[in-house]
Protein backbone atom coordinates (compact mmCIF):
# COMPACT_ATOMS: atom_id res chain seq x y z
CA UNK A 1 0.00 0.00 0.00
CA UNK A 2 1.36 3.41 -0.88
CA UNK A 3 1.91 5.84 1.93
CA UNK A 4 -1.09 8.09 2.23
CA UNK A 5 0.18 11.59 2.90
CA UNK A 6 -3.25 13.00 3.50
CA UNK A 7 -6.27 10.80 3.92
CA UNK A 8 -9.86 11.92 4.15
CA UNK A 9 -11.68 9.06 5.83
CA UNK A 10 -15.44 8.92 5.75
CA UNK A 11 -16.14 12.51 6.64
CA UNK A 12 -19.68 13.91 6.61
CA UNK A 13 -21.23 17.20 7.56
CA UNK A 14 -24.72 17.47 9.01
CA UNK A 15 -26.53 20.52 10.30
CA UNK A 16 -29.48 20.34 12.67
CA UNK A 17 -32.64 21.21 10.83
CA UNK A 18 -35.27 23.52 12.23
CA UNK A 19 -37.94 21.28 13.75
CA UNK A 20 -35.69 18.31 14.43
CA UNK A 21 -33.62 16.00 12.24
CA UNK A 22 -30.51 16.84 10.28
CA UNK A 23 -29.63 18.21 6.87
CA UNK A 24 -26.74 16.25 5.42
CA UNK A 25 -24.56 18.40 3.19
CA UNK A 26 -22.26 15.61 2.09
CA UNK A 27 -21.56 12.18 3.45
CA UNK A 28 -19.05 9.38 3.58
CA UNK A 29 -16.26 11.11 1.70
CA UNK A 30 -13.07 9.07 1.27
CA UNK A 31 -10.00 10.36 -0.46
CA UNK A 32 -6.27 9.72 -0.25
CA UNK A 33 -3.79 12.33 -1.46
CA UNK A 34 -0.13 11.78 -2.27
CA UNK A 35 2.66 14.22 -1.56
CA UNK A 36 3.00 16.67 -4.45
CA UNK A 37 -0.55 16.08 -5.72
CA UNK A 38 -2.47 18.98 -7.14
CA UNK A 39 -6.14 18.17 -6.52
CA UNK A 40 -9.03 20.30 -7.70
CA UNK A 41 -12.58 19.84 -6.53
CA UNK A 42 -15.49 20.87 -8.73
CA UNK A 43 -19.19 20.83 -8.00
CA UNK A 44 -22.20 23.05 -7.88
CA UNK A 45 -22.75 25.51 -5.04
CA UNK A 46 -24.11 23.81 -1.95
CA UNK A 47 -22.31 20.51 -2.43
CA UNK A 48 -20.04 21.27 0.52
CA UNK A 49 -16.76 21.96 -1.26
CA UNK A 50 -15.92 24.85 1.05
CA UNK A 51 -16.88 22.76 4.06
CA UNK A 52 -14.49 20.00 2.93
CA UNK A 53 -11.75 22.60 2.61
CA UNK A 54 -12.55 24.12 5.99
CA UNK A 55 -12.43 20.66 7.56
CA UNK A 56 -9.04 20.06 5.96
CA UNK A 57 -7.95 23.46 7.29
CA UNK A 58 -9.26 22.60 10.74
CA UNK A 59 -11.55 25.62 10.77
CA UNK A 60 -14.57 23.32 10.78
CA UNK A 61 -15.03 19.85 12.25
CA UNK A 62 -16.69 16.95 10.44
CA UNK A 63 -19.88 15.52 11.95
CA UNK A 64 -18.32 12.09 11.53
CA UNK A 65 -15.15 10.67 10.04
CA UNK A 66 -11.64 12.02 10.27
CA UNK A 67 -8.84 13.55 8.26
CA UNK A 68 -5.39 12.09 8.70
CA UNK A 69 -2.31 14.12 7.80
CA UNK A 70 1.03 12.31 8.04
CA UNK A 71 -0.53 9.60 10.25
CA UNK A 72 -2.13 12.09 12.61
CA UNK A 73 -5.80 12.94 12.85
CA UNK A 74 -6.25 16.67 12.60
CA UNK A 75 -7.68 18.34 15.65
CA UNK A 76 -7.91 21.93 14.51
CA UNK A 77 -6.05 24.49 12.46
CA UNK A 78 -2.35 24.00 12.08
CA UNK A 79 0.65 25.66 10.48
CA UNK A 80 0.99 22.43 8.46
CA UNK A 81 -2.00 23.43 6.41
CA UNK A 82 -1.97 26.89 4.87
CA UNK A 83 -5.17 28.42 3.56
CA UNK A 84 -5.45 30.84 0.67
CA UNK A 85 -8.77 32.57 1.16
CA UNK A 86 -11.09 33.57 -1.65
CA UNK A 87 -11.14 37.12 -0.31
CA UNK A 88 -7.34 36.99 0.22
CA UNK A 89 -7.88 37.96 3.93
CA UNK A 90 -4.81 40.17 4.16
CA UNK A 91 -4.47 42.28 7.29
CA UNK A 92 -5.12 45.78 5.91
CA UNK A 93 -3.13 47.56 8.61
CA UNK A 94 0.04 45.68 7.71
CA UNK A 95 2.24 46.14 4.67
CA UNK A 96 2.97 43.35 2.19
CA UNK A 97 6.15 42.60 4.15
CA UNK A 98 4.20 42.80 7.42
CA UNK A 99 1.58 40.33 6.22
CA UNK A 100 4.10 37.73 5.08
CA UNK A 101 6.37 38.32 8.09
CA UNK A 102 3.38 37.80 10.39
CA UNK A 103 2.99 34.27 9.06
CA UNK A 104 6.74 33.58 9.21
CA UNK A 105 7.05 34.80 12.79
CA UNK A 106 3.98 32.75 13.74
CA UNK A 107 5.70 29.61 12.55
CA UNK A 108 9.17 30.36 13.89
CA UNK A 109 8.42 32.31 17.06
CA UNK A 110 12.03 32.59 18.25
CA UNK A 111 13.44 33.97 15.01
CA UNK A 112 15.00 37.42 15.07
CA UNK A 113 13.29 40.15 13.03
CA UNK A 114 16.10 40.17 10.49
CA UNK A 115 15.77 36.45 9.78
CA UNK A 116 11.97 36.70 9.54
CA UNK A 117 12.25 39.55 7.05
CA UNK A 118 14.79 37.68 4.95
CA UNK A 119 12.51 34.68 4.66
CA UNK A 120 9.46 36.85 3.95
CA UNK A 121 11.45 38.70 1.29
CA UNK A 122 12.33 35.40 -0.37
CA UNK A 123 8.67 34.53 -0.85
CA UNK A 124 7.68 38.06 -1.85
CA UNK A 125 10.29 37.78 -4.58
CA UNK A 126 9.00 34.32 -5.52
CA UNK A 127 5.53 35.66 -6.30
CA UNK A 128 7.04 38.61 -8.17
CA UNK A 129 6.17 41.37 -5.74
CA UNK A 130 9.61 42.80 -5.00
CA UNK A 131 9.39 46.56 -4.91
CA UNK A 132 5.92 46.45 -3.34
CA UNK A 133 7.05 45.31 0.14
CA UNK A 134 6.07 48.48 1.93
CA UNK A 135 2.69 48.89 0.26
CA UNK A 136 -0.51 48.27 2.15
CA UNK A 137 -3.15 45.90 0.74
CA UNK A 138 -5.43 48.84 -0.15
CA UNK A 139 -2.78 50.07 -2.59
CA UNK A 140 -2.58 46.72 -4.40
CA UNK A 141 -4.64 45.38 -7.27
CA UNK A 142 -6.71 42.22 -6.78
CA UNK A 143 -4.08 40.06 -8.43
CA UNK A 144 -1.28 41.49 -6.31
CA UNK A 145 -3.31 40.94 -3.14
CA UNK A 146 -3.78 37.30 -4.04
CA UNK A 147 -0.03 37.03 -4.72
CA UNK A 148 0.58 38.24 -1.18
CA UNK A 149 -1.86 35.58 0.03
CA UNK A 150 0.11 32.93 -1.90
CA UNK A 151 3.45 34.22 -0.56
CA UNK A 152 2.05 34.15 2.97
CA UNK A 153 0.82 30.58 2.55
CA UNK A 154 4.05 29.31 0.98
CA UNK A 155 6.34 31.07 3.45
CA UNK A 156 5.39 28.72 6.29
CA UNK A 157 6.31 25.59 4.30
CA UNK A 158 2.92 23.95 4.70
CA UNK A 159 2.43 20.25 4.08
CA UNK A 160 -0.60 21.18 2.05
CA UNK A 161 -1.89 24.41 0.59
CA UNK A 162 -5.67 24.80 0.65
CA UNK A 163 -7.08 27.22 -1.90
CA UNK A 164 -10.71 28.32 -1.83
CA UNK A 165 -11.50 29.67 -5.31
CA UNK A 166 -8.39 31.80 -5.14
CA UNK A 167 -8.76 33.36 -8.57
CA UNK A 168 -12.53 33.79 -8.81
CA UNK A 169 -12.44 37.48 -7.91
CA UNK A 170 -9.84 38.32 -10.56
CA UNK A 171 -10.23 39.42 -14.17
CA UNK A 172 -9.45 36.86 -16.86
CA UNK A 173 -5.99 38.16 -17.77
CA UNK A 174 -4.76 38.42 -14.19
CA UNK A 175 -6.24 35.02 -13.48
CA UNK A 176 -4.25 33.51 -16.33
CA UNK A 177 -0.95 34.98 -15.15
CA UNK A 178 -1.56 33.90 -11.58
CA UNK A 179 -2.46 30.37 -12.67
CA UNK A 180 0.86 30.23 -14.51
CA UNK A 181 2.68 31.46 -11.40
CA UNK A 182 0.95 28.98 -9.12
CA UNK A 183 1.69 26.13 -11.50
CA UNK A 184 5.35 27.13 -11.78
CA UNK A 185 5.74 27.50 -8.01
CA UNK A 186 3.99 24.21 -7.27
CA UNK A 187 6.10 22.31 -9.80
CA UNK A 188 9.29 23.90 -8.45
CA UNK A 189 8.52 23.29 -4.79
CA UNK A 190 6.55 20.04 -5.10
CA UNK A 191 3.80 21.63 -3.05
CA UNK A 192 0.72 19.54 -2.29
CA UNK A 193 -2.39 21.53 -3.15
CA UNK A 194 -6.10 21.10 -2.63
CA UNK A 195 -8.11 23.68 -4.54
CA UNK A 196 -11.76 24.56 -5.00
CA UNK A 197 -12.72 25.99 -8.35
CA UNK A 198 -15.72 26.61 -10.55
CA UNK A 199 -13.61 26.97 -13.65
CA UNK A 200 -13.22 23.75 -15.64
CA UNK A 201 -10.32 25.09 -17.75
CA UNK A 202 -8.50 26.20 -14.64
CA UNK A 203 -8.91 22.73 -13.15
CA UNK A 204 -7.59 21.03 -16.30
CA UNK A 205 -4.63 23.38 -16.56
CA UNK A 206 -3.58 23.14 -12.92
CA UNK A 207 -4.71 19.85 -11.46
CA UNK A 208 -3.37 16.31 -11.58
CA UNK A 209 -6.70 15.01 -10.33
CA UNK A 210 -10.12 16.58 -10.49
CA UNK A 211 -12.76 15.53 -7.99
CA UNK A 212 -16.35 15.69 -9.15
CA UNK A 213 -18.97 16.19 -6.47
CA UNK A 214 -22.69 15.58 -6.99
CA UNK A 215 -25.24 18.18 -5.99
CA UNK A 216 -26.10 18.67 -2.34
CA UNK A 217 -27.72 17.94 -0.04
CA UNK A 218 -26.44 14.38 0.40
CA UNK A 219 -23.59 15.19 -1.97
CA UNK A 220 -21.06 12.46 -2.63
CA UNK A 221 -17.75 12.25 -4.42
CA UNK A 222 -18.90 10.80 -7.74
CA UNK A 223 -15.62 10.25 -9.53
CA UNK A 224 -11.98 11.17 -9.65
CA UNK A 225 -10.85 12.37 -13.06
CA UNK A 226 -7.17 11.77 -13.68
CA UNK A 227 -5.77 14.46 -15.86
CA UNK A 228 -4.38 12.77 -18.98
CA UNK A 229 -2.49 15.85 -20.16
CA UNK A 230 1.32 15.79 -19.90
CA UNK A 231 2.82 17.22 -16.73
CA UNK A 232 4.87 19.75 -18.70
CA UNK A 233 1.83 21.36 -20.30
CA UNK A 234 2.06 25.05 -21.17
CA UNK A 235 -0.83 27.47 -21.37
CA UNK A 236 -0.35 28.32 -25.05
CA UNK A 237 -0.52 24.66 -26.08
CA UNK A 238 -2.77 23.02 -23.55
CA UNK A 239 -6.06 23.55 -25.39
CA UNK A 240 -4.61 22.08 -28.59
CA UNK A 241 -3.78 18.77 -26.97
CA UNK A 242 -5.94 15.98 -28.43
CA UNK A 243 -7.08 14.92 -24.96
CA UNK A 244 -8.01 18.43 -23.81
CA UNK A 245 -11.56 18.43 -25.13
CA UNK A 246 -12.41 14.88 -24.10
CA UNK A 247 -11.51 15.80 -20.51
CA UNK A 248 -13.30 19.10 -20.67
CA UNK A 249 -16.43 17.55 -22.21
CA UNK A 250 -16.44 14.79 -19.64
CA UNK A 251 -16.35 17.27 -16.76
CA UNK A 252 -18.93 19.58 -18.30
CA UNK A 253 -21.27 16.66 -19.03
CA UNK A 254 -20.98 15.73 -15.43
CA UNK A 255 -21.68 19.23 -14.16
CA UNK A 256 -24.60 19.79 -16.53
CA UNK A 257 -26.49 16.54 -16.18
CA UNK A 258 -24.88 13.71 -14.23
CA UNK A 259 -24.29 15.76 -11.06
CA UNK A 260 -28.06 15.95 -10.70
CA UNK A 261 -29.02 12.45 -11.80
CA UNK A 262 -26.11 10.65 -10.15
CA UNK A 263 -27.99 9.83 -6.97
CA UNK A 264 -30.86 8.08 -8.80
CA UNK A 265 -28.71 6.51 -11.58
CA UNK A 266 -26.24 4.94 -9.22
CA UNK A 267 -28.53 4.06 -6.33
CA UNK A 268 -26.89 1.18 -4.47
CA UNK A 269 -24.09 0.88 -7.01
CA UNK A 270 -21.85 3.68 -5.74
CA UNK A 271 -19.19 2.66 -3.26
CA UNK A 272 -17.86 5.78 -1.52
CA UNK A 273 -14.65 3.96 -0.57
CA UNK A 274 -14.06 2.85 -4.11
CA UNK A 275 -14.76 5.90 -6.22
CA UNK A 276 -14.15 5.23 -9.92
CA UNK A 277 -11.02 6.84 -11.33
CA UNK A 278 -11.58 8.03 -14.88
CA UNK A 279 -9.10 9.01 -17.57
CA UNK A 280 -11.34 10.50 -20.24
CA UNK A 281 -10.34 10.25 -23.88
CA UNK A 282 -8.21 7.17 -23.53
CA UNK A 283 -9.14 3.98 -25.29
CA UNK A 284 -10.70 1.25 -23.15
CA UNK A 285 -10.81 0.77 -20.30
CA UNK A 286 -12.18 4.22 -19.59
CA UNK A 287 -12.83 3.29 -16.01
CA UNK A 288 -9.92 1.90 -14.10
CA UNK A 289 -10.38 -0.08 -10.97
CA UNK A 290 -9.30 1.94 -7.96
CA UNK A 291 -7.74 0.33 -4.96
CA UNK A 292 -10.10 0.04 -2.04
CA UNK A 293 -9.18 2.49 0.64
CA UNK A 294 -8.40 1.04 4.02
CA UNK A 295 -8.91 3.33 6.99
CA UNK A 296 -5.89 4.30 9.00
CA UNK A 297 -8.17 4.96 11.93
CA UNK A 298 -9.12 1.65 13.54
CA UNK A 299 -12.42 2.81 14.98
CA UNK A 300 -13.07 4.29 11.53
CA UNK A 301 -15.57 7.00 11.84
CA UNK A 302 -15.57 8.95 15.03
CA UNK A 303 -19.03 9.23 16.50
CA UNK A 304 -20.69 12.53 15.84
CA UNK A 305 -18.13 14.90 17.17
CA UNK A 306 -18.71 18.11 18.86
CA UNK A 307 -16.49 20.84 17.52
CA UNK A 308 -13.04 20.73 19.12
CA UNK A 309 -13.09 24.48 19.36
Amino acid sequence: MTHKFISIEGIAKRFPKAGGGFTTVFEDLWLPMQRGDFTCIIGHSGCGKTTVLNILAGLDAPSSGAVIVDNQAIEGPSLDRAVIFQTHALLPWRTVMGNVAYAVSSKWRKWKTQRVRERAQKFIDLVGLNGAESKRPAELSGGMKQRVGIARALSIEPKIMLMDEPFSALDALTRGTLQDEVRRICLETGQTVFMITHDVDEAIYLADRILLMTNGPHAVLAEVVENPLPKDRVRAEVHKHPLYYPVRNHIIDFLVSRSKSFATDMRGKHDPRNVPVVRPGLAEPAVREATVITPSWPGLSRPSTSSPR
Partner: protein
Amino acid sequence: MTSSLTLRAAVVSVALFVAFMLAWHVATRGTSAVQQMDPEYAKLMGLTATQGKSAMPGPLDVGAKLWEHLRQPFYDKGPNDKGVGIQLAYSIARVALGYMLAVLVAIPIGFLIGMSPLMSKALDPFIQILKPISPLAWMPLALYTIKDSSMSAIFVIFICSLWPMMINTVFGVASVRREWLNVAKTLEVGTIRRAFTIILPAAAPTILTGMRISIGIAWLVIVAAEMLVGGTGIGYFVWNEWNNLSITNVINAILLIGVVGMVLDLILARLTRLVTFPE
Protein backbone atom coordinates in the same frame (compact mmCIF):
# COMPACT_ATOMS: atom_id res chain seq x y z
CA MET B 1 -12.98 81.02 -11.25
CA THR B 2 -10.30 78.57 -10.33
CA SER B 3 -9.93 79.39 -6.66
CA SER B 4 -10.07 76.30 -4.52
CA LEU B 5 -13.08 75.27 -2.48
CA THR B 6 -11.13 75.86 0.74
CA LEU B 7 -10.38 79.43 -0.23
CA ARG B 8 -13.96 80.18 -1.20
CA ALA B 9 -15.22 78.59 2.02
CA ALA B 10 -12.77 80.75 3.98
CA VAL B 11 -14.10 83.88 2.29
CA VAL B 12 -17.69 82.94 3.16
CA SER B 13 -16.66 82.16 6.76
CA VAL B 14 -14.99 85.55 7.17
CA ALA B 15 -17.97 87.31 5.60
CA LEU B 16 -20.41 85.55 7.94
CA PHE B 17 -18.21 86.41 10.92
CA VAL B 18 -18.02 90.09 9.96
CA ALA B 19 -21.78 90.24 9.34
CA PHE B 20 -22.47 88.68 12.74
CA MET B 21 -20.08 91.08 14.50
CA LEU B 22 -21.65 94.10 12.80
CA ALA B 23 -25.17 92.95 13.69
CA TRP B 24 -24.07 92.36 17.27
CA HIS B 25 -22.36 95.75 17.42
CA VAL B 26 -25.38 97.58 16.03
CA ALA B 27 -27.81 95.72 18.26
CA THR B 28 -25.92 96.57 21.46
CA ARG B 29 -24.93 100.15 20.57
CA GLY B 30 -27.57 101.60 22.91
CA THR B 31 -30.22 104.08 21.84
CA SER B 32 -32.21 104.93 24.94
CA ALA B 33 -32.17 108.55 25.99
CA VAL B 34 -29.62 109.75 28.47
CA GLN B 35 -31.35 110.73 31.68
CA GLN B 36 -30.41 113.78 33.65
CA MET B 37 -29.74 112.89 37.24
CA ASP B 38 -27.73 113.75 40.24
CA PRO B 39 -24.07 112.74 39.58
CA GLU B 40 -23.86 110.80 42.87
CA TYR B 41 -26.99 108.85 41.93
CA ALA B 42 -25.68 108.34 38.41
CA LYS B 43 -22.55 106.65 39.78
CA LEU B 44 -24.78 104.13 41.54
CA MET B 45 -26.96 103.56 38.50
CA GLY B 46 -24.13 102.61 36.16
CA LEU B 47 -23.76 103.24 32.45
CA THR B 48 -26.97 101.49 31.39
CA ALA B 49 -29.14 104.16 32.96
CA THR B 50 -26.91 107.19 32.59
CA GLN B 51 -25.48 106.84 29.06
CA GLY B 52 -28.22 104.71 27.45
CA LYS B 53 -25.73 101.84 27.07
CA SER B 54 -27.15 98.37 26.40
CA ALA B 55 -26.89 95.89 29.26
CA MET B 56 -25.64 93.37 26.76
CA PRO B 57 -21.94 93.91 26.03
CA GLY B 58 -20.97 94.57 22.44
CA PRO B 59 -18.25 92.76 20.51
CA LEU B 60 -15.70 95.47 21.30
CA ASP B 61 -16.23 95.09 25.05
CA VAL B 62 -15.95 91.33 24.78
CA GLY B 63 -12.87 91.64 22.59
CA ALA B 64 -11.17 94.02 24.99
CA LYS B 65 -11.90 91.73 27.94
CA LEU B 66 -10.72 88.72 26.01
CA TRP B 67 -7.47 90.47 25.22
CA GLU B 68 -7.10 91.25 28.90
CA HIS B 69 -7.65 87.57 29.77
CA LEU B 70 -5.25 86.34 27.15
CA ARG B 71 -2.53 88.78 28.19
CA GLN B 72 -2.69 87.58 31.75
CA PRO B 73 -4.22 84.12 31.80
CA PHE B 74 -2.54 82.76 34.92
CA TYR B 75 -2.87 85.39 37.64
CA ASP B 76 -4.14 84.27 41.01
CA LYS B 77 -5.65 86.85 43.33
CA GLY B 78 -7.44 84.60 45.76
CA PRO B 79 -10.23 82.06 45.52
CA ASN B 80 -12.66 84.27 43.60
CA ASP B 81 -10.27 85.94 41.17
CA LYS B 82 -8.09 83.63 39.15
CA GLY B 83 -7.05 83.93 35.50
CA VAL B 84 -9.06 81.97 32.92
CA GLY B 85 -5.93 79.99 32.09
CA ILE B 86 -5.87 78.61 35.63
CA GLN B 87 -9.61 77.88 35.51
CA LEU B 88 -9.30 76.08 32.17
CA ALA B 89 -6.30 74.16 33.43
CA TYR B 90 -8.34 72.91 36.39
CA SER B 91 -11.15 71.78 34.09
CA ILE B 92 -8.79 70.12 31.62
CA ALA B 93 -6.96 68.35 34.42
CA ARG B 94 -10.23 66.98 35.83
CA VAL B 95 -11.38 65.84 32.42
CA ALA B 96 -8.00 64.27 31.69
CA LEU B 97 -7.96 62.37 34.97
CA GLY B 98 -11.54 61.11 34.78
CA TYR B 99 -11.15 60.30 31.12
CA MET B 100 -7.90 58.36 31.56
CA LEU B 101 -9.47 56.35 34.36
CA ALA B 102 -12.37 55.57 32.04
CA VAL B 103 -9.95 54.50 29.27
CA LEU B 104 -8.15 52.18 31.69
CA VAL B 105 -11.42 50.58 32.75
CA ALA B 106 -13.55 50.68 29.60
CA ILE B 107 -11.09 49.33 27.03
CA PRO B 108 -9.86 46.20 28.85
CA ILE B 109 -13.36 45.36 30.09
CA GLY B 110 -14.87 46.12 26.69
CA PHE B 111 -12.24 43.85 25.15
CA LEU B 112 -13.13 40.94 27.42
CA ILE B 113 -16.85 41.44 26.92
CA GLY B 114 -16.40 41.70 23.15
CA MET B 115 -14.38 38.49 22.97
CA SER B 116 -17.03 36.53 24.86
CA PRO B 117 -20.49 36.34 23.29
CA LEU B 118 -21.83 35.10 26.64
CA MET B 119 -20.61 38.15 28.57
CA SER B 120 -21.77 40.42 25.75
CA LYS B 121 -25.29 39.18 26.12
CA ALA B 122 -25.21 38.94 29.91
CA LEU B 123 -23.90 42.45 30.53
CA ASP B 124 -25.87 44.18 27.80
CA PRO B 125 -28.96 45.00 29.94
CA PHE B 126 -26.78 46.60 32.64
CA ILE B 127 -24.93 48.74 30.13
CA GLN B 128 -28.15 49.72 28.41
CA ILE B 129 -29.65 50.91 31.73
CA LEU B 130 -26.52 52.66 33.00
CA LYS B 131 -25.74 54.39 29.71
CA PRO B 132 -28.68 56.83 29.49
CA ILE B 133 -28.31 58.08 33.09
CA SER B 134 -27.30 61.73 33.12
CA PRO B 135 -23.84 61.79 34.65
CA LEU B 136 -24.90 64.62 36.98
CA ALA B 137 -27.47 62.31 38.55
CA TRP B 138 -24.50 60.43 40.04
CA MET B 139 -23.27 63.60 41.72
CA PRO B 140 -25.13 63.31 45.06
CA LEU B 141 -24.13 59.67 45.33
CA ALA B 142 -20.54 60.60 44.55
CA LEU B 143 -20.50 63.46 47.04
CA TYR B 144 -21.97 61.22 49.72
CA THR B 145 -19.55 58.33 49.20
CA ILE B 146 -16.35 60.13 48.13
CA LYS B 147 -16.90 63.14 50.43
CA ASP B 148 -14.71 65.33 48.25
CA SER B 149 -16.22 67.71 45.72
CA SER B 150 -13.24 67.74 43.38
CA MET B 151 -13.00 63.96 43.32
CA SER B 152 -16.74 63.78 42.75
CA ALA B 153 -16.38 65.90 39.63
CA ILE B 154 -13.68 63.55 38.39
CA PHE B 155 -15.92 60.58 39.13
CA VAL B 156 -18.73 62.17 37.12
CA ILE B 157 -16.35 62.62 34.18
CA PHE B 158 -15.25 59.01 34.58
CA ILE B 159 -18.79 57.66 34.56
CA CYS B 160 -19.89 59.71 31.55
CA SER B 161 -16.81 58.80 29.48
CA LEU B 162 -17.08 55.14 30.32
CA TRP B 163 -20.12 54.02 28.34
CA PRO B 164 -19.43 55.24 24.80
CA MET B 165 -15.89 53.85 25.01
CA MET B 166 -17.01 50.53 26.43
CA ILE B 167 -19.86 50.08 23.97
CA ASN B 168 -17.64 50.91 21.02
CA THR B 169 -14.87 48.62 22.25
CA VAL B 170 -17.32 45.73 22.67
CA PHE B 171 -18.75 46.38 19.23
CA GLY B 172 -15.33 46.78 17.59
CA VAL B 173 -13.94 43.62 19.17
CA ALA B 174 -17.07 41.56 18.46
CA SER B 175 -17.20 42.57 14.80
CA VAL B 176 -13.61 41.80 13.81
CA ARG B 177 -13.87 40.09 10.44
CA ARG B 178 -14.14 36.32 10.61
CA GLU B 179 -11.50 35.93 7.88
CA TRP B 180 -8.85 37.78 9.90
CA LEU B 181 -9.57 35.56 12.88
CA ASN B 182 -9.32 32.55 10.58
CA VAL B 183 -5.91 33.77 9.43
CA ALA B 184 -4.82 33.83 13.06
CA LYS B 185 -6.30 30.37 13.63
CA THR B 186 -4.57 28.76 10.67
CA LEU B 187 -1.29 30.34 11.81
CA GLU B 188 -1.84 28.88 15.30
CA VAL B 189 -1.61 32.32 16.90
CA GLY B 190 -2.22 32.21 20.66
CA THR B 191 -4.99 34.13 22.41
CA ILE B 192 -2.81 36.94 23.76
CA ARG B 193 -0.94 37.46 20.52
CA ARG B 194 -4.23 37.31 18.61
CA ALA B 195 -5.72 39.98 20.89
CA PHE B 196 -2.82 42.34 20.28
CA THR B 197 -1.96 41.65 16.64
CA ILE B 198 -5.37 41.02 15.09
CA ILE B 199 -8.24 42.17 17.29
CA LEU B 200 -6.70 45.36 18.65
CA PRO B 201 -5.62 46.83 15.30
CA ALA B 202 -8.86 45.71 13.66
CA ALA B 203 -11.01 47.24 16.40
CA ALA B 204 -8.83 50.33 16.97
CA PRO B 205 -10.77 52.68 14.65
CA THR B 206 -14.06 51.79 16.38
CA ILE B 207 -12.48 52.13 19.83
CA LEU B 208 -11.00 55.52 18.95
CA THR B 209 -14.39 56.68 17.65
CA GLY B 210 -15.85 55.77 21.04
CA MET B 211 -13.05 57.68 22.75
CA ARG B 212 -13.79 60.70 20.59
CA ILE B 213 -17.48 60.63 21.52
CA SER B 214 -16.45 60.28 25.17
CA ILE B 215 -14.11 63.27 25.23
CA GLY B 216 -16.88 65.41 23.73
CA ILE B 217 -19.35 64.31 26.40
CA ALA B 218 -16.74 64.73 29.16
CA TRP B 219 -16.11 68.32 28.12
CA LEU B 220 -19.85 69.03 28.04
CA VAL B 221 -20.32 67.55 31.47
CA ILE B 222 -17.35 69.17 33.24
CA VAL B 223 -18.88 72.68 32.90
CA ALA B 224 -22.12 71.57 34.52
CA ALA B 225 -20.30 69.55 37.17
CA GLU B 226 -18.10 72.48 38.14
CA MET B 227 -21.11 74.76 38.41
CA LEU B 228 -22.35 72.33 41.04
CA VAL B 229 -19.16 71.61 42.96
CA GLY B 230 -17.71 75.12 42.70
CA GLY B 231 -14.28 76.34 43.78
CA THR B 232 -12.29 76.15 40.57
CA GLY B 233 -12.67 75.36 36.93
CA ILE B 234 -14.20 77.03 33.92
CA GLY B 235 -17.72 75.93 34.85
CA TYR B 236 -17.34 77.56 38.25
CA PHE B 237 -15.93 80.64 36.50
CA VAL B 238 -19.06 80.93 34.33
CA TRP B 239 -21.35 80.69 37.34
CA ASN B 240 -19.23 83.08 39.41
CA GLU B 241 -19.24 85.68 36.64
CA TRP B 242 -23.01 85.27 36.33
CA ASN B 243 -23.27 86.03 40.03
CA ASN B 244 -21.03 89.07 39.39
CA LEU B 245 -23.37 90.00 36.51
CA SER B 246 -20.37 90.18 34.20
CA ILE B 247 -21.97 89.10 30.94
CA THR B 248 -18.73 90.01 29.14
CA ASN B 249 -16.83 87.38 31.10
CA VAL B 250 -19.60 84.82 30.62
CA ILE B 251 -19.40 85.31 26.86
CA ASN B 252 -15.62 85.03 26.97
CA ALA B 253 -15.84 81.83 28.96
CA ILE B 254 -18.34 80.38 26.48
CA LEU B 255 -15.94 81.16 23.67
CA LEU B 256 -13.00 79.54 25.45
CA ILE B 257 -15.03 76.44 26.31
CA GLY B 258 -15.82 76.08 22.62
CA VAL B 259 -12.19 76.47 21.57
CA VAL B 260 -10.89 73.94 24.10
CA GLY B 261 -13.64 71.47 23.14
CA MET B 262 -12.66 71.80 19.50
CA VAL B 263 -8.98 71.23 20.29
CA LEU B 264 -9.78 68.10 22.32
CA ASP B 265 -11.89 66.76 19.46
CA LEU B 266 -9.15 67.53 16.93
CA ILE B 267 -6.59 65.61 18.98
CA LEU B 268 -8.82 62.53 19.07
CA ALA B 269 -9.67 62.91 15.38
CA ARG B 270 -5.94 62.95 14.60
CA LEU B 271 -5.39 59.84 16.71
CA THR B 272 -8.30 58.10 14.99
CA ARG B 273 -6.75 58.83 11.61
CA LEU B 274 -3.48 57.29 12.80
CA VAL B 275 -5.05 53.91 13.50
CA THR B 276 -7.54 53.87 10.63
CA PHE B 277 -6.57 51.57 7.80
CA PRO B 278 -7.93 51.82 4.27
CA GLU B 279 -9.59 48.68 2.94
